[in-house]
């Protein structure tokens, strides 16, 4: 019986297993091999040992890209999660209008990232952009968001907040699942809105919240499309700004502009290991802070 079940299980799992093996596992393993070679796609790979990894240590552009990425992740993830939680809490209070606002918040998430990159240049234009126009109404002279190295990354963080819709929906669903009895009990104890939010809602949604944090941390470490479009791609064919050169952009340029596929593979593996390490730390920390209903 068990063998039969196993056969069926493997049969139904096989589309995913085959897809994973062909499209993820094999390319990853092969890229591990390529990271030890000098490879430009056109010629055959030639084995160079660990020299690609050693080259990363001396690559100033890679260091700058890593610093940019860490800065972006450290600022963007808390901002993204905070805004997501606040909007989810607001939507939970919205009553009948919740459906409408849920749609409104989610719609920007459906915008193609390339369009978001181009939109960034328009909204954050230092002379005629909407952001600086609005700031001007309250007497603030906005910066040159798209050229000033100090303001490039804050602009990208703000732009990323347009796409909180997906996380808001996840967190709203979690908030709606919090048992009403818990709020009633808190009310009896004299808790106000913020106390209930902090002591009841947040612990009860800590599982989905942890998921949102982990996924967005990984996404922030891999951020690419919007910044590439705005500062290296169609938005700026000649001008670029190294304040916007994130790690994956550096990797992409090494691979597809300079044809250093072996070196780019080494960069990819380093990023993979960094993400694994950070995620492992997050999982360890979560054991103390995250509440899973199934563990009761």
């Amino acid at each position: 019986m068990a063998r039969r079940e196993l056969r069926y299980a493997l049969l139904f799992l096989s589309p995913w297993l085959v897809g994973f093996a062909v499209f993820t596992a094999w390319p990853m393993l092969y890229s591990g091999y390529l990271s030890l070679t000098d490879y430009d796609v056109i010629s055959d790979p030639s084995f160079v040992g660990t020299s690609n990894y050693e080259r990363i240590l001396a690559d100033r552009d890679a260091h700058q890209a890593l610093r940019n990425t860490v800065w972006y992740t450290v600022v963007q993830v808390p901002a993204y999660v905070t805004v997501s939680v606040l909007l989810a809490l607001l939507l939970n209070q919205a009553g009948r209008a919740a459906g409408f606002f849920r749609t409104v918040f989610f719609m920007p998430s459906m915008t193609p990232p390339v369009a978001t990159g181009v939109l960034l240049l328009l909204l954050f234009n230092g002379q005629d952009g909407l952001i600086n126009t609005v700031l001007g109404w309250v007497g603030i002279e906005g910066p040159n968001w798209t050229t000033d190295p100090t303001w490039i990354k804050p602009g990208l963080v703000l732009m990323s907040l347009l796409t909180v819709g997906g996380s808001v929906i996840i967190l709203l669903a979690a908030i709606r699942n919090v048992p009403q009895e818990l709020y009633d009990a808190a009310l009896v104890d004299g808790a106000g809105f913020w106390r209930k939010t902090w002591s009841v809602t947040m612990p009860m949604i800590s599982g989905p919240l942890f998921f949102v944090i982990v996924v967005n941390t990984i996404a922030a470490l891999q951020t690419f499309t919007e910044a590439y479009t705005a500062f290296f791609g169609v938005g700026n064919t000649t001008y670029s700004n190294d304040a916007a050169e994130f790690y994956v952009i550096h990797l992409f340029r090494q691979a597809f502009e300079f044809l250093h596929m072996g070196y780019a593979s080494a960069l990819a593996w380093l990023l993979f290991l960094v993400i694994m390490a950070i995620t492992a730390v997050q999982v360890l920390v979560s054991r103390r802070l995250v509440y899973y209903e199934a563990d009761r």
Partner: protein
Amino acid sequence: MRGLRPTAALVAGGLLLAGCAEGTGGPSGGAGDEEGETGGSAFSADASMEGELSIMGFGLDDEIAEVRFDLAEQAVDGVEVSLAEGGLDMQQFLSSVASGDVPSLIRADRTQIGTLASRGAIQPLDDCLEAEGVDPGQFLEPALAQVTFADQVYGIPEFNQVRLTMANEQLLEEAGLTLEDVNGSDWEAVTNANQKLFQGSGSRVEVIGYDSKLPEFLPMWARANGGAMLSEDGRTAQLDDPAVVEALEWAVGIYDDQGGFGQVKAFRDSADFFGAGNQFASGTLGAMPMEHWYVNVLNEVSPDAPVIFDTVRDRQGEPISYATGSAWAIPAGSDNPAAACRFAATMVATDSWFAAAEERVAAREEAGLQFTGLLTGNQEADQRIQEELVEPSGEENWDSAVEAIYEANENTFTLPANPADAEFDRAWKDAVNRVLNGQQQPAEALADAQEQAQQALDRAWEEWDATQGQ
């Protein structure tokens, strides 16, 4: 979560591409070295035209493309021609190389030819040109130099983009200036004109005085100042040459006098560049150097704009133009090199260009617009078109534009072919951007760029020399 999709695409696409790649062999072992795929046997005037011809990097965007494409198709009658329309996507091309399914013929930017040639991705075309009776001397020398790597021609030049000075006559007159003040012959005069033409207050720009078009036009300013960013043999970067540094200092100073590059660029980005409200029509730009195709745009969308033209001049007052363009190339491993060669040769033949230009003239006449000439990269074709098809319109400014276009075409320069063009390009552009962004001073930025560019060149040339047994 946005980053997941592109990264997934990178992993699944880039790594899969890498994962599945077997390579096609390098310069010494590539498909291009196989018997029958290069050398005299592959190209012949008597070659039978059969099989398939897949083309990448070309688009049928206008009559100039369509007419020549039809003629080239006729020249390879019997061959099934397929075209993946659009500019050459390097990722797409590399994917096809990695999978062993290379296109028969590609059209690339001329700056890419050196790198592709050094890596054995494209074939030498000297035998192709000889077989098709194409005299390399018909091409403009700088254009041909750009596609000549290690003394062999790897690309067939097509088109030539030159740079002109464009200025708002009304703004010049109001400021008591003339075209000579902004054509680059006297840098001090340009600086003074910029200060007079600029209008703005605080962080607001209302009129850009002069736009020196950094970072992309630095090679032209360096040459105008008597410098060169790369040695003629393409082996030595010269980015820290005092003439290059001085050119950058001057060109950046133009922006500094207008409140900084950030402000000017933001204002420039908000302009209606291709519309009737463009910078010249709206009176928001004094002068700038610009590619000559923009003459057509201005003539079409704002024929009454007070815009006047001249060539860009070096500091001795001589016309000078940085030229760019495209080139046809045949990948190593092309399945139909003979047909590819004939097709490319027909695309750039004098008769093909002339037929296309005639069609353009008819189309412009029908639209009530002036024919502003056509720069083909082929000297014979340029001369014939200019002599037989270009006619004065009677409107002085547009006629002077055409005159300037042809004058600039005779005074072009290009950066030499080299095996690390993308990295060299990135090194100097990043340096200029760091200066524009206020992160470094010109001398310091160009010194860093020099080191970076030379390392890339040394590495690439070393690999090339190794394949040549040097």
